C-alpha cells in the first residue's frame, strides 16, 4: 500500500525479548518469620499431646485423690494435682482433645456451609444474594449466648451439639469473607475468559472462583478456630459445655477459681496453656494472612 503504509509496528521491531521474566519469590517459610514457626511448634505440641493422650500412659484424668489436693509437681504428677487431687497434666491433655475438637470441627462446619453460601451469593447475585445476606445479618444480630443456652438446655451438652452450635454461629463470618472475595473475583477477566471457553456457571464457581478463595478463607479459618476455642472455654467456664467430670480447659479454670488464694496454679496452669494456644493461633493466622495477601497482590 506504498505511500499509505501505516504498518509501522512490524518495522519498529528490533529485538525479540522472548525469555519470560521468571522471578521466583523467596521461599515462603523464610518470609513467615520465627514467631510463626514458634507458634506452629506450640500448636503442634498441643495437637500431638491431645491426639496421643490415650497412648501416653498418663494418670486417669478423673481419678480423685482427696489426700493429695492441690499438690505441687512430683514424679507422679508432673504438673501437680487439682482441687480434687486429679492429675493436672492428664486433665490438660484430655481437655486439649475437647478444646481442639470443638475449635476445629465447628470451624470446619462454619467454613464449608458459610463459604458455599457466600460464594453462591457473590456469584449469582440478585434474589439469592439478598436472601443470604439478610439471613446472615439476622444471624449476626441474634444474641449468641441466648441461642447457646436454649440449645444446651433443651437439647443437651453432648460435644457434637456444642460443635453444631458454635459452627452454626460461625457461618455468617465465613459467608461474608467468601462473598466479598467472590464479588471481586467474578469481575476479573479470567472468569469472562472461562465463560468464553464454554464453561458452565457451576464449573466457573468450582474451577475458577473456589481455588482463588481457598487461601483467604483458610487463613481466616485459623482465626475462627481461636474464637471457637474461646467460645467453648467460655461455655465450659459457665458449665454449659461438655458435662463434668470430662476435662475441658475452660472447666479446669472454673474449677480452680474457688481455691485461687491457696492453690492459684490449679486455675493458672490451664489458663496459661489456653492463653498460649489462642495467642499462637492468632499469631500464626496473622502472619499467614500477610504472606497470602502479598502473594495475591503479586498476581
Amino acid at each position, binding site marked *: 500500500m506504498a505511500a499509505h503504509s501505516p504498518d509501522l509496528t512490524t518495522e519498529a521491531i528490533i529485538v*525479540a525479548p522472548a525469555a519470560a521474566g521468571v522471578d521466583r519469590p523467596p521461599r515462603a517459610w523464610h518470609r513467615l518469620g520465627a514467631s510463626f514457626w514458634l507458634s506452629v511448634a506450640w500448636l503442634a505440641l498441643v495437637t500431638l499431646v491431645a491426639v496421643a493422650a490415650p497412648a501416653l500412659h498418663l494418670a486417669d484424668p478423673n481419678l480423685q485423690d482427696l489426700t493429695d489436693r492441690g499438690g505441687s509437681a512430683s514424679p507422679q504428677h508432673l504438673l501437680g494435682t487439682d482441687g480434687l487431687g486429679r492429675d493436672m497434666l492428664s486433665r490438660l491433655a484430655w481437655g486439649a482433645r475437647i478444646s481442639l475438637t470443638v475449635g476445629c470441627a465447628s470451624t470446619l462446619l462454619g467454613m464449608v456451609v458459610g463459604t458455599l453460601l457466600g460464594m453462591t451469593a457473590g456469584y449469582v447475585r440478585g434474589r439469592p444474594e439478598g436472601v443470604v445476606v439478610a439471613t446472615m445479618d439476622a444471624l449476626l444480630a441474634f444474641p449468641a449466648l441466648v441461642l447457646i443456652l436454649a440449645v444446651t438446655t433443651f437439647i443437651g451438652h453432648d460435644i457434637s451439639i456444642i460443635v453444631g452450635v458454635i459452627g452454626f454461629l460461625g457461618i455468617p463470618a465465613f459467608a461474608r469473607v467468601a462473598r466479598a472475595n467472590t464479588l471481586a473475583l467474578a469481575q476479573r477477566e479470567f472468569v*469472562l475468559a472461562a465463560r468464553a471457553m464454554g464453561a458452565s456457571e457451576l464449573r466457573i464457581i468450582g474451577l475458577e472462583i473456589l481455588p482463588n478463595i481457598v487461601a483467604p478463607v483458610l487463613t481466616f479459618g485459623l482465626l475462627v478456630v481461636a474464637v471457637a476455642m474461646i467460645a467453648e472455654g467460655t461455655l465450659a467456664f459457665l458449665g454449659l459445655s461438655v458435662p463434668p467430670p470430662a476435662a475441658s480447659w475452660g472447666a479446669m479454670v472454673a474449677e480452680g477459681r474457688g481455691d485461687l488464694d491457696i492453690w492459684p496454679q490449679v486455675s493458672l496452669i490451664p489458663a496459661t496453656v489456653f492463653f498460649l494456644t489462642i495467642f499462637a493461633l492468632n499469631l500464626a493466622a496473622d502472619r499467614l494472612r500477610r504472606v497470602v495477601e502479598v502473594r495475591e497482590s503479586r*498476581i
Partner: protein
Amino acid sequence: MPPLLEVTDLCVEFRTERGPLRAVDGVSLKLEAGRTLGIVGESGCGKTVLSRSLLRLTPVTAGRIVFDGRDIVTMDESELRDVRGRDVSIVFQDPMTSLNPVLTIGSQIAETLIHHLRMSRRAARARARELLAAVGIPSPDARLREYPHQLSGGMRQRVTIAMALACEPRLLVADEPTTALDVTVQAQILDLLKQQQRERGMAMILISHDLGVVAGRTDEIAVMYAGRIVERAPTGLLFRRTRMPYTEALLRAIPRLEHASHTRLLAIGGRPPDLVDPAPGCRFAPRCSRVRERCRIDEPPLMPDGAADHDFACWYPVEVPDLPPHSRGRVGVGGT
C-alpha cells in the same frame, strides 16, 4: 457459499441510570471462512462490546448473529456453551487478568480440551504441550507446571492464544490482543496470530484502536464510531480511497516514519457523542472538519460506493479520483 459469520442489525443496549445506552447500534458484518476482518475505532466506540456480544458474553438486545447457519442469538445455554471455545474463541486484551492466577498453565489449557473434546487428562496434557510449542513458548514442558505470574506479558498472551486455539476453532476473535503489551512484543503476537490463522485456516476478527495494527494483517476493515460501522472496505482500498472523514482523521493521527521527529500529531478534537441520548444527524458531525448543515439533521446510512466493494456513512465524503475502469468491481485485497 454462505459466509461463516453473518451479523445483521446487531444492537446491544445497557441499562444506565440515565436510560438505555446503545453501545452497538445496528451493526452488520459478513466474514467468510479463513479470512480476516479488522475492526477499528477509538476507545468506547463499541468494538469490545461487539466482540463479546458475538458469543453473547454481553446480552444481545436485537439482531441476528448467524454462525455457520445457526443463529447464536436464539441458541439455548447448552448449545451456546458448545460453540464457545470450540467453534469460536476469544483472545482478550489483558493477559495479566485473563488467566486464572492460582491454576497452572497446563491445567488451564487442558481444562478446555477435557471439557470440549472429552480428552483424557494425559492426552490433554500432551496436546497442551504441543499447543505451547506451536505458539512459540520455549521449554513448554516446564511452562506447563508454572503459574501465570511466573510468565511475562508476552508469554502470557501466547498462553491465552494457545488456549483459544486448543479446540481448533473456525473463528478467532482477538480483542485488542496487544494493547496491554510492550511495543516490541506487539508485532510478535500479531504475527503469531496471523501465522496460526493461515496454518489452521481459521477466520479471524482482529480488533484494534490502531489502524497500523490491522493494516497489514487483514483482508477487510470495518471502522466503528459511536456504536456504528461508518466505513467498510477491503484493506487496500480503505487506505487508498478513504471516503469517511473519520477514517481519514484516524489515518492522520498515526505517527509516520517519514515525518521529521517531533512533528505534531493531528489529534481528532472533541469527544465521541453521548450514547444514551445521541444528537440527531451524523454522530461524527461535531468533530468533523467537513461538516455541513445536512450532517446535523440527517444521519447518513451506510451506503455502497457504487462501483467498488466499499461502504461508508457520509453525506459529503472525501473526494477521490474515479476508479480507473479496469479495476472496477472487486478491488484487490490486501493491497500491499
